[in-house]
């Protein structure tokens, strides 16, 4: 129980305002109404958004279509830890992990990688839990809002599609701001996090 004192509001029965002779003549009220209308008509400013012609500026923390981030080597950053799949309240993420090909020099510093990674974008509720759960900031929700498709099948995004979203949005200058992409989490690159120190408060799960 908070220490706030209870406020008592009294509700009063209102009376209709008295009409004076000026109001009873109607003309001043009509004139002022017309002035308001004219002022708006000639103010020259409109609040109309010309949507398909002019795209709206979406806030950077908008939660739209997912993307799977790539690391510096261009590989999928996801380490197939199943954290997102576990966290997802809508059960729309499905990952099949595979051991990283050890003999390939390209993958030699990784143990696991997602062989398949699918998100059902229709079932997703865009809550952002996956993003919060991911220890390496591999999955992110971009500010892409106009997702359309011709079939349900089309809306189930696989790994390639999710990586393609990354490729499309990475240079748009509108990166999501919730995660610390670029300054990666502890499971990814120890050296860089050690240098980085704690992230500024209020920015994502590390704060």
């Amino acid at each position, binding site marked *: 129980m908070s220490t706030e004192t*209870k406020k008592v509001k009294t509700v*009063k029965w209102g009376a209709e305002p008295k*009409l004076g002779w000026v109001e009873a*003549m109607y003309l001043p009220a009509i004139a002022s109404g017309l002035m308001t*209308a004219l002022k708006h*008509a*000639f103010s020259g400013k409109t*609040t109309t958004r010309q949507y398909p012609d002019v795209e709206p500026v979406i806030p950077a923390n908008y939660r739209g279509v997912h993307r799977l981030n790539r690391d510096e080597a261009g590989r999928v950053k996801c380490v197939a830890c199943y954290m997102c799949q576990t966290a997802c309240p809508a059960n729309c993420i499905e990952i099949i992990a595979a051991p990283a090909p050890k003999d390939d020099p390209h993958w030699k510093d990784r143990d696991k990688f997602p062989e398949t990674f699918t998100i059902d974008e229709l079932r997703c509720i865009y809550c952002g839990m996956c993003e919060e759960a991911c220890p390496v900031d591999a999955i992110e929700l971009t500010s892409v809002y106009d997702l359309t498709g011709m079939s349900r099948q089309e809306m189930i995004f696989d790994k390639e599609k999710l990586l393609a979203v990354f490729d499309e949005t990475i240079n748009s200058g509108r990166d999501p701001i919730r995660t610390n992409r670029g300054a990666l989490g502890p499971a990814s690159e120890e050296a860089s996090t050690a240098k980085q120190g704690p992230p500024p408060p209020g920015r994502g799960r590390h704060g």
Partner: protein
Amino acid sequence: MYDFLQQIWPTLWPTLAAIGVILAFVPVLGLYMTFIERKLAAYVQDRLGPNRVGPFGLLQAIADAIKLFLKEQVIPDHVFKLLYFIAPTLSLMTAMFALVVMPFGPVPTDYTSGFRYIVAPGIDIGIMMMIAISSLSAYGIILGGWASNNKYSLYGAIRSCAQFISYEIPLGLSIIGIVVAAGSLNIEHIVAAQGGDFWNWNIFWQPLALIVFFTSALAETNRLPFDLPECEQELVGGFHTEYGGIKFVLFFLAEYTHVVTVSFLTALLFFGGWHFPGLSGPVDAGLGGMLLRTFVLVAKVSMVVAFIMLLRWALPRFRFDQLMGLAWKGLIPLGLVNLVCVAVVFTFDLPKHLLSFTAVFLFVASLISARNLQSTINMPRSAGRPKAGSILSEVTV
């Protein structure tokens, strides 16, 4: 037969031409008035309005017309078919018929020139006929409401009936002064009497009549703030709830034709018609003078139309008892007072500009009605209702 035709041809062709102009003009005008109204409404509400079809959305009106014409013709099961079909036609017919005596350009009072900007020139009961015909349009609405067999439509129709009857009276009263001054009911003569200086325009000696006339005329057109017959919030769509497609178009063309009629009448009766200071000489002197005068008239009319459209976004709708009160307790007494003043001034040959002081009666009327309004607005409360200012309840938050 041929001889007869040849004989009447010189008077027949200008009439046919004028009829053609009106018939072609009214639908196009109606369509474009909806467009202008939508644009104006948008600007008043800080929006852009229709702008997708054609440059500046100019083809929107055409697109609307095509849509309305191609719509499926739904005839509800429960309507009285004959009247249901007659009503919209009657509505538009009477609205257009009223235009017969309306000069839409300069008309010389001796009716010499070939093409005259009027279908029936020299009708001596001109303005009388116009008011008589346009009040017939109540039939269209009432029949439509009755035939629809729908309670909302009927409510709308009954409201419109009451409204028409009430506002006919001040409408008629307000123009008597002008008719007396011009000595004729003929609209061309009334306009001719306003020629010359600014000060001859009727508005400068009949301001009270203008207010009464314009208010009642607005009520006759069923436009906001007097659009109770079709107010969406209470009556779904009012008398045209059951109408769609082309049948709805007829109703709505009738409404816009009324607006045009009222605007023309206001410009002709009160704002000097096609006269403008500096524009002197016979009205049929050359094509240039004719066109210039037509332009002057059209400019005045467009201003009135714009004013009517702006009023729609400036004023809230009247309550029905307020609407009736305004007519019977406000406009009719004012019209009568104006009539008495006009009679006094013309009987004793006083200068007619003395009559501009009739505007004072507006103040007197408002003083009286302010007292009366107090008693009608703050009606005695029922026993259960608390008194004004008393504490209703205490709420803990």
